[in-house]
């Protein structure tokens, strides 16, 4: 099968080869063995006669089948199937054993076509196989080869002699099966009569090695599991029952087993579909112990067929694996030794998994109704994980011990590591140097099970023993069989570094590169790293070792970053970094990095996934000849690091497969999200890391995917956790050290509640709504319909909250729909719209009889400006706080002025100017807006521009009607924003509100004050969002970002801002805290101040209290 054998076979072993002759049973000369191992032919000539007694009954059979044409009614055939070319007739004749009926069947089911391309069918030679094997086994020469005890037996090549010392088949057990007749007749089959077990399907281009196995071919469109049995005369008697036929057929097709049957019971007069009881003796064929083709690492050649090929292989593997398990079940063979880690996983799991797969497949085919779609099933396995499942998974993996020892990086590393980074370094170096497992010679590979060859058959007759071959080994997960003791492979010398983004994975890795590197004097190097070499592909001989080089594979956009980080972190000249990309690729890496070139070999090669893939394709095109390519695949690195390793999360992707083929001593993957959305994502990483046994997909699927899909989450996740635990280091930003400090300390944040007092008009609106809500509530309480009407009450509460922000909101229909509050909408449509009381109140608040304010002369403004610095006539504050002027141009603090007006109103007087006693109106109060802190780049165009000559350098001012700034909250916000700008004109702020329509109202206020702002809410398209965020982060303008709590509360990174304003409280503070954390998170370097606006004496204060209570819960 493999061309590699002759070369690899050590010379010494030829000895066994010479002794071989006596051991295997004689194959009957007529039988062709086109695919038997090369060793097979050689023993035959000197084979002892005694071991191959070909019994006579065969001869009759032989002659019968040789007599082609006898009794074959061609005309009948043609009558049924129509005109057929003579060649087809010949084929049919041969296949049907001269039975016309059978020939017709064969023709109609189309199987002859394949047969036509297959080698000419051999004559149906019947053999008395049982005796044959028995005798041959007895005569078998005891080989001196033993697997475990022979020196050098652990070398992979020794497998061949061991194989050779095995008979072509060896008894493993017998079991009973049920068959049903396909024929009627008397004395068709008798008790104890030997029956031949035949397959109707054969693998293309190979005939069954079993003697007398008739080559029978079916067009294998459907999965064919038909197993027929024939009597001694070669007449088909019946078929095996489907259940057992399913796996028996697979074993026969894959040349794993040979079955010999004898009839246990059959009625003398057999009728169609009557039951026949058979006893089958099963032999494991020698060829089964040969290495399976698909396990060879030369998949490179199949690059183009990747998707289908792999799936087809996986399918064959699954069949074989399941069949073997069922076989061992049937013959009741128990493993004499299993690995402790796999012990707990029952075989049951295997079967269950397979069954489930079958069902899924059946369903799929049924759905698709088409052949070929079956392939798809393997590709889409793995249901998506729910977030909470992911969380619990991570939580387990994240049980990071803060007392882990630390390790100082090598002194060539110049950056300062944080504590958790030094801990990571310690962990990683420990992982790389871990050799404990490899010392244990006796440790069996966790996937394998050990079985004892049976010494007696079912009738207690002794079975021939083969000396030093008392055991054989089965891998129930791959269906592999071996005579050789499967040694535990070297443990994975790497792992998954899954720290959250921003914790410095790159730096941690660089510290590892510096700290654990191969010493330059190469003498003692061999002792260490050679042992640590993981299994290499077959053609490893031409892969040059690169003991000083770490290969970093990263997305293209990160190459430059890796390079600069690597240079920044190293002392000059201590780390040679090379970016292998574009023109650099002309270098012959093999020459550059080989051990001989130690002094000049680059320490780090940085390349991209794209380069890996393209070189992989090139190597594949060169028939997997890695060495001559001279590229990335021609080296065996000291270490490979895959950055952003979720790039290879799909195990079927070419990139992933290319990465699997890279060889290295140490393998690391870096990713912030080891599982993106399905458990299979993790498998690909494990596969890359070559973590046994989990890098076997079948194993993975059996214990993780299948239970998970079957809803057995706890079990699946438990298993995943055992996989992850030794492999993964993950820390998150919100982890706290035992003394309660954050892993990465954040600058302090202060949260302050700013009490806002409503203006009188607002208060009126609020009180009005409040009174009505109260009325509704008590009416409902009295009527006992409180629970039913809770939506109405909710709507009222919402109103109250809105009126705290701005009374206009309560009347805004878009908000009502925005809040999706149907009750409120209905309310509005019915009674409330006619509620003139409220309407008038709101109007009083909002009405703007817009005077033309332009009429103010320049001299007035001059006077106002002069007064700005003088004392407030009311409170004696100097200068005035927020100067405001009356309609008669008398200045005072805004607050004093408004207070006074309020005072007068309260007493029922008409408000008059404090100065000239002119009657004044609250709406005729103007705020003086000074533009001394306005942006230079902003070309301020104010209607009330002060025309003072530039020479005076007096700040420009404008007047603005106070009512226009909107609600008390808006004003409070503006006051704060202006204060910030006085303090530090560069600070950016974020404003959160849950009412987007409130943001709508804030916008014009900001515009008027020339405060640059950006808007971000749910209505903005995804693309635009990114643009807005980039602008906010990158611009030098002191932007104010208006965010809706819902759109911006999660995920965003707004660390460029330092101030947060919460315009309105939410029921739970957690939601607000989320929003605040957009600003106060990793990367924030300055202190963060948060201001929460709360209206005094309103529902908002009550909400605060509710928040407090929730916090305690």
């Amino acid at each position: 099968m493999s061309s590699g054998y002759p070369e690899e076979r050590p010379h010494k072993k030829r000895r066994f080869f010479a002794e071989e002759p006596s051991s295997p049973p004689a194959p009957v000369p007529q039988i062709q063995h086109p695919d038997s191992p090369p060793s097979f032919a050689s023993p035959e000539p000197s084979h002892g006669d005694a071991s191959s007694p070909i019994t006579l009954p065969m001869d009759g059979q032989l002659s019968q089948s040789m007599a082609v044409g006898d009794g074959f009614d061609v005309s009948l055939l043609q009558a049924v199937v129509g005109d057929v070319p003579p060649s087809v007739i010949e084929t049919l004749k041969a296949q049907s054993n001269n039975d016309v009926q059978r020939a017709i069947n064969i023709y109609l089911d189309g199987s002859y076509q394949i047969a036509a391309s297959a080698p000419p069918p051999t004559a149906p030679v019947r053999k008395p196989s049982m005796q044959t094997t028995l005798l041959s086994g007895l005569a078998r020469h005891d080989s001196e080869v033993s697997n475990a005890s022979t020196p050098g037996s652990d070398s992979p090549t020794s497998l061949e002699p061991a194989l050779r010392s095995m008979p072509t088949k060896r008894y493993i057990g017998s079991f009973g099966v049920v068959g049903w007749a396909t024929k009627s007749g008397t004395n068709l089959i008798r008790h104890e009569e030997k029956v031949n077990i035949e397959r109707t399907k054969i693998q293309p281009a190979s005939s069954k090695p079993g003697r007398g196995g008739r080559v029978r071919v079916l067009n294998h469109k459907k999965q064919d599991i038909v197993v027929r049995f024939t009597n001694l005369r070669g007449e088909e008697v019946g078929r095996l029952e489907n259940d057992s036929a399913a796996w028996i057929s697979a074993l026969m097709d894959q040349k794993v087993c040979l079955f010999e049957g004898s009839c246990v019971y059959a009625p003398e007069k057999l009728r169609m579909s009557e039951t026949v009881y058979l006893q089958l003796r099963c032999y494991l064929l020698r060829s089964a112990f040969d290495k399976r083709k698909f396990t060879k690492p030369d998949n490179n050649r199949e690059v183009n067929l990747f998707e289908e090929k792999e799936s087809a292989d996986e399918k064959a593997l699954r069949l074989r694996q399941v069949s073997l398990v069922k076989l061992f079940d049937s013959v009741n063979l128990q493993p004499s030794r299993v690995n402790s880690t796999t012990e707990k996983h029952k075989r049951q799991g295997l079967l269950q998994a397979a069954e489930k797969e079958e069902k899924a497949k059946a369903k799929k085919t049924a759905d698709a109704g088409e052949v070929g779609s079956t392939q798809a099933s393997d590709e889409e396995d793995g249901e998506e994980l729910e977030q909470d499942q992911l969380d619990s998974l991570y939580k387990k993996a994240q049980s990071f011990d803060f007392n882990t020892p630390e390790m100082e990086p090598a002194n060539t590393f110049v950056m300062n590591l944080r504590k958790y980074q030094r801990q990571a370094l310690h962990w990683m170096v420990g992982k790389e140097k871990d050799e404990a497992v490899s010392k244990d010679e006796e440790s069996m590979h966790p996937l394998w099970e050990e079985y004892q060859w049976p010494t007696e058959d079912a009738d207690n007759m002794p079975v021939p023993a083969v000396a030093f071959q008392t055991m054989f080994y089965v891998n129930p997960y791959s269906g592999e069989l071996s005579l050789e003791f499967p040694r535990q492979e070297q443990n994975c010398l790497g792992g998954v570094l899954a720290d959250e983004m921003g914790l410095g994975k790159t730096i941690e890795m660089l510290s590892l590169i510096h700290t654990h590197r191969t010493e330059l004097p190469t003498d003692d190097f061999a002792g260490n790293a050679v042992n640590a070499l993981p299994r290499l592909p077959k053609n490893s001989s031409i892969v040059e070792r690169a003991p000083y080089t770490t290969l970093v594979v990263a997305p293209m956009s990160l190459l430059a970053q890796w390079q600069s980080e690597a240079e920044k972190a190293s002392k000059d000249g201590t780390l040679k970094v090379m970016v292998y990309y574009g023109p650099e690729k002309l270098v012959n890496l093999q020459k550059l990095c080989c051990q001989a070139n130690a002094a000049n070999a680059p320490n780090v090669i940085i390349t991209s996934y794209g380069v890996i893939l393209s070189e992989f394709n090139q190597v594949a095109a060169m028939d997997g000849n890695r060495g001559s390519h001279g590229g990335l695949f021609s080296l065996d690195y000291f270490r490979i690091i895959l950055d952003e390793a979720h790039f290879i999360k799909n195990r079927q992707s070419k990139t992933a497969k290319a990465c699997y083929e890279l060889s290295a001593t140490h393998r690391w993957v870096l990713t912030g999200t080891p599982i993106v959305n399905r458990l299979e994502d993790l498998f690909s990483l494990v596969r890359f890391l070559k973590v046994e046994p989990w890098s076997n997909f079948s194993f993975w699927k059996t214990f993780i995917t299948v239970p998970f899909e079957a809803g057995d989450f706890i079990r699946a996740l438990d298993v995943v956790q055992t996989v992850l635990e030794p492999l993964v280091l993950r820390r998150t930003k919100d982890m706290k050290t035992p003394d309660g400090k954050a892993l990465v300390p954040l600058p302090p944040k202060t949260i302050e509640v700013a009490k806002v007092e409503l203006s009188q008009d607002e208060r009126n609106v609020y009180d009005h709504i409040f009174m009505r809500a109260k009325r509704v509530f008590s009416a409902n309480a009295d009527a006992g319909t409180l629970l039913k009407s809770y939506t109405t009450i909710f709507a009222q509460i919402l109103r109250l909250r809105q009126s705290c922000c701005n009374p206009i909101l309560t009347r805004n229909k878009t908000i009502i729909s925005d809040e999706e509050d149907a009750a409120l909408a209905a309310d509005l449509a019915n009674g409330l719209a006619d509620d003139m009381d409220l309407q008038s109140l709101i109007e009083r608040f909002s009405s703007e009889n817009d005077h033309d304010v332009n009429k103010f002369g320049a001299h007035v403004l001059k006077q106002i400006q002069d007064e700005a610095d003088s004392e407030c006539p009311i409170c004696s504050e100097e200068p005035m706080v927020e100067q405001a002027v009356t309609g008669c141009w008398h200045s005072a603090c805004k607050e004093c002025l408004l207070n006074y007006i309020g005072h007068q109103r309260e007493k029922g007087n008409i408000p008059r100017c404090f100065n000239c006693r002119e009657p004044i109106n609250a709406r005729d109060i103007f705020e003086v807006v000074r533009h001394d802190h306005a942006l230079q780049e902003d070309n301020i165009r104010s209607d009330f521009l002060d025309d003072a000559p530039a020479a005076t350098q007096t700040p420009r001012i404008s007047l603005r009607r106070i009512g226009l700034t909107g609600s008390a909250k808006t004003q409070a916000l503006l006051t704060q924003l202006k204060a910030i700008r006085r303090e530090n004109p560069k600070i950016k702020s974020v404003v959160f509100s849950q009412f987007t329509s409130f943001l709508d109202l804030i916008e014009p206020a900001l515009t008027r004050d020339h405060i640059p702002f950006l808007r971000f809410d749910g209505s903005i398209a995804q693309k635009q969002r990114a643009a807005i965020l980039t602008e906010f982060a990158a611009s030098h303008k002191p932007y104010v970002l208006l965010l809706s709590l819902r759109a911006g509360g999660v995920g965003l990174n707004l660390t460029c801002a330092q101030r947060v304003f919460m315009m309105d409280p939410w029921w739970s503070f957690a939601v607000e805290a989320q929003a605040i954390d957009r600003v106060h998170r990793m990367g924030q370097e300055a202190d963060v101040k948060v201001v929460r606006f709360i209206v005094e004496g309103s529902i908002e204060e009550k909400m605060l209290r509710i928040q407090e209570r929730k916090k305690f819960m």
Partner: protein
Amino acid sequence: MSLPKRIIKETERLMADPVPGISAVPHEDNLRYFDVTIEGPSQSPYEKGIFQLELFLPDDYPMTPPKIRFLTKIYHPNIDRLGRICLDVLKSNWSPALQIRTILLSIQALLGAPNPDDPLANDVAQDWKKDEKGAIETARQWTQQYAK
């Protein structure tokens, strides 16, 4: 209750820059309570008289006017027997822009220009209207008798 800035400033200014003929000194135990003396304006029946007043700044001062009252007996049509003063700026015409100083000046001015058409003490006002000379004489006598 802490004293508003405005009251502190007014007090400081009254001390540092007193109005001629007027003094106002706050009580030590209550800074809103002032002892006030006003000299009678010359060429008036109250000349040479020194009148004691008390002045209290209410909590909502300067939104509301100060409360002020003559302690010294005075014969004046706009001031009653209890010392209460009828003056528009202390009532409807009060404005927060007015101060203690301006109010006291107004009272001083009121002494120089009695207004019997808007009386508070009706008997005095009637006397004043019937026999202005006699009334002025009475006022002068009272001043000599009480305002010393």
